[in-house]
């Protein structure tokens, strides 16, 4: 296509001048031919006239009758084109004649020929086959100017066509130049665009690396803190003769640290957008009150945590885990903003109408601190992922972005107001739900002993530590446990007729996944209850889509107990 157009342009560039040249040549040829034809016709006419004269003066010349010859010559004078008519005898001497312009030569000369606008012809005077003289005739043809006017039409036509072609050719070449310029500009633009894309790519890469650095630093720091608590507490637990109250306190510290670790991984997964929201109809106040017990110990002695909760708060439809994570994130930020202590106040209230924003009714949760506040220049960025004012290793920069993402995903919004030196207020607007709160389940004390009679459980877990923990927990609950380290191992146990009532399997395992294993076991024993467990959101989605009950990692003892009891009850046909 491009080649063809280039070829066309080349052809055109050669064609136009060539066509004009050919046209001019053709015009000239036509004119030349016309001129030649005209001259030939005139020549013939002159020749005929000279022959007529020759015939008419034969006798006069033969018999020397000069006056008769002169009369014949004069007869030609009526034709204004005839300039000269001379009659010469056999020896070429002048005999008679007629001259309009200049005198005739006294002697006939054959050398004289047609010149310019005069055609000269001669004819022999013949009597019975004998030449007795010569007639010499000079005939004027139209002057060149008048002849040329006859060709004016052709000239005009050729001229006009040439002009048209020339204009066309010029237009084409101008277009070609413009096209070249345009193509050049286009190339430049494309180059710049590519350059820009490359630069942006590099920038993104750099930002990603920076973010990753902050994230990993923050996670490492947080986990180290939690691990330190767990490790230290475990060391204390190992000491003999530990008083009961201290043992409980230390154990609680381990549980709290693990809970925070779980929150942290939950945030990571939420950030990676792999954790789907599981909204429930919630009583926000109740959730907050429950959380306070967990939050308070981590705040330290210098920080006072207070609440002002609206007693008739509307229910909301949000993911409880994400809500708790959001509150925790805000509180942790508040704590970090008050290293020398201060006041944190959590407030809830109903709003309606304009204040509620895009929803008619909303529940507002605001958390206020009396900390150092945020610089005005930074406040716009606090909801951005990985933005942090904390030094490296002190925070992930994910906290407030989780708050923002949670609020937005829940159909509400998050706002922040801060005054340097006076403190910060983070406000969550959550749309109120029309649905009533579900009936509150009776608060059960920790079911340390399973309600159902003990069952036989096939535990499939590739991670040894997690497997040991699960075996311990299940054993504590009174169940008998058969261990398998992989899907195939579990299958072979089943095939060998191992006795068990339910299967508790990890989802993400090398070789055969827990979901595949569950499918195969179902083929063998359709009535066998199977519980899956995973920390991966993808595995979670797959498992849930297959309608298997799922226990999310990390799990607490009571969660496990409930899941196993339900499975056993189902198995036993309750």
């Amino acid at each position, binding site marked *: 296509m491009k080649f063809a157009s280039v070829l066309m342009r080349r052809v055109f560039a050669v064609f136009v001048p060539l066509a004009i040249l050919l046209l001019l040549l053709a015009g000239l040829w036509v004119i030349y031919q016309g001129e030649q034809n005209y001259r030939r016709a005139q020549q013939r006419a002159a020749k005929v006239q000279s022959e007529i004269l020759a015939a*008419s003066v*034969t*006798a*006069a*010349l*033969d*018999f*020397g*009758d*000069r*006056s*008769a010859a002169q009369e014949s010559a004069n007869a030609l004078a009526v034709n204004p084109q005839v300039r000269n008519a001379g009659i010469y*005898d*056999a*020896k070429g*001497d002048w*005999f008679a004649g007629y001259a309009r312009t200049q005198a005739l030569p006294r002697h006939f000369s054959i050398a004289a020929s047609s010149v310019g606008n005069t055609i000269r012809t001669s004819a022999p005077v013949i*009597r*019975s*086959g*004998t030449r*007795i003289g010569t007639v010499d005739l000079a005939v004027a043809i139209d002057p060149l100017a008048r002849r040329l006017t006859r060709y004016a039409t052709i000239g005009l036509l050729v001229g006009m066509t040439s002009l048209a072609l020339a204009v066309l050719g010029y237009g084409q070449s101008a277009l070609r130049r413009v096209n070249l310029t345009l193509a050049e500009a286009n190339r430049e633009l494309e180059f710049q665009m590519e350059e820009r894309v490359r630069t942006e790519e590099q920038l993104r890469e750099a930002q990603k690396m920076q973010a990753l650095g902050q994230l990993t630093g923050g996670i490492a720091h947080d986990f180290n803190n939690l691990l330190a608590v767990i490790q230290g507490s475990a060391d204390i637990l190992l000491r003999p003769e530990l008083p009961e109250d201290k043992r409980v306190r230390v154990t609680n510290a381990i549980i709290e640290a693990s809970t925070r670790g779980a929150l942290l991984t939950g945030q990571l997964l939420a950030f990676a957008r792999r954790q789907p929201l599981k909204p429930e109809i919630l009583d926000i106040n109740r959730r907050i009150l429950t959380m306070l017990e967990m939050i308070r110990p981590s705040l330290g002695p210098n920080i006072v945590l207070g609440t002002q909760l609206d007693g008739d708060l509307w229910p909301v439809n949000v993911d409880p885990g994400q809500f708790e994570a959001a509150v925790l994130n805000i509180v942790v930020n508040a704590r970090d903003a008050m290293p020398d202590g201060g006041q944190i106040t959590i407030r809830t209230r109903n709003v309606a109408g304009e204040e509620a924003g895009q929803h008619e009714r909303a529940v507002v949760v605001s958390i206020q601190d009396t900390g150092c506040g945020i610089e005005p220049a930074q406040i716009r960025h606090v909801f951005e992922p990985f933005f942090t004012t904390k030094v490296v290793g002190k925070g992930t920069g994910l906290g407030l972005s989780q708050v923002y993402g949670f609020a937005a995903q829940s159909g509400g919004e998050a706002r922040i107001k801060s005054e340097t030196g006076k403190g910060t207020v983070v406000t969550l607007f959550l749309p109120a739900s029309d649905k009533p709160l579900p009936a509150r389940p009776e608060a059960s004390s920790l079911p340390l002993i399973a309600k159902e009679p003990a069952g036989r459980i096939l535990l499939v877990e590739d991670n040894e530590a997690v497997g040991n923990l699960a075996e311990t927990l299940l054993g504590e609950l009174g169940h008998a446990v058969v261990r398998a380290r992989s899907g195939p191992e579990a299958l072979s146990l089943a095939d060998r007729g191992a006795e068990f009532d339910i299967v508790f399997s990890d989802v993400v395992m090398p070789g055969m996944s827990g979901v595949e294993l569950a499918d195969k076991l179902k083929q063998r024993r359709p009535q066998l209850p199977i519980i899956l467990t995973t920390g991966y959101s993808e595995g979670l989605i797959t498992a849930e889509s297959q309608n298997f009950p799922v226990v999310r990692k990390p799990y607490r003892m009571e969660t496990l107990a409930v899941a196993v009891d339900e499975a056993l009850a189902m198995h036993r046909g309750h």
Partner: protein
Amino acid sequence: MGPAVTRRRPVIFLGLSLVCSAFILTTAAEAQPTPLEIEVKAAFLAKFAAYVIWPPGAVGAADEPIQLCIIGRDPFGAELDQTVARQRVALHPFVVRRLNGTASAAGCHIAFLGGSTTQSIAAMQDALDDKPILTVTDASLGAERGMVHFALKDGRVRFHIDDARAAHGNLAISARLLSLAITVRPRTQS
């Protein structure tokens, strides 16, 4: 040009191919003809052949001669033979025959009637009247006219033509020749 045009031109000039120079002739018309005048007439005699059409059969094949007969007095002499020897009409050469009378004129194509003591010009003319022979007479020899009759006009040798008589002899004389005649007696309409 009509056949009855009368020539009255004052110009006198001899431009014949066989005449080398020009002479102004005296106006002594009835005096003895000058040698030049005779020479011109001799030349004319042969030239007439080119302007006359004989009836079919009168003239032989291409190379057969045209017979030029001098009947009676001969004013030309050897001059005529020399002049005629160089001339041809078409491919026909000329032969000069000198006769005493019209009795032996058979085969003649052109006859100059000089008259003789035994036969007048008029008698000769009468004898050849219905023959296809172009008869030529000369004013200097008598007033009797043949088909062509030489006469001097303005000192130059001219001629009268009796086309009616030519028609009688079944001859056709070219209009070109007729146009040069001093007078022409036209042939009667028939």
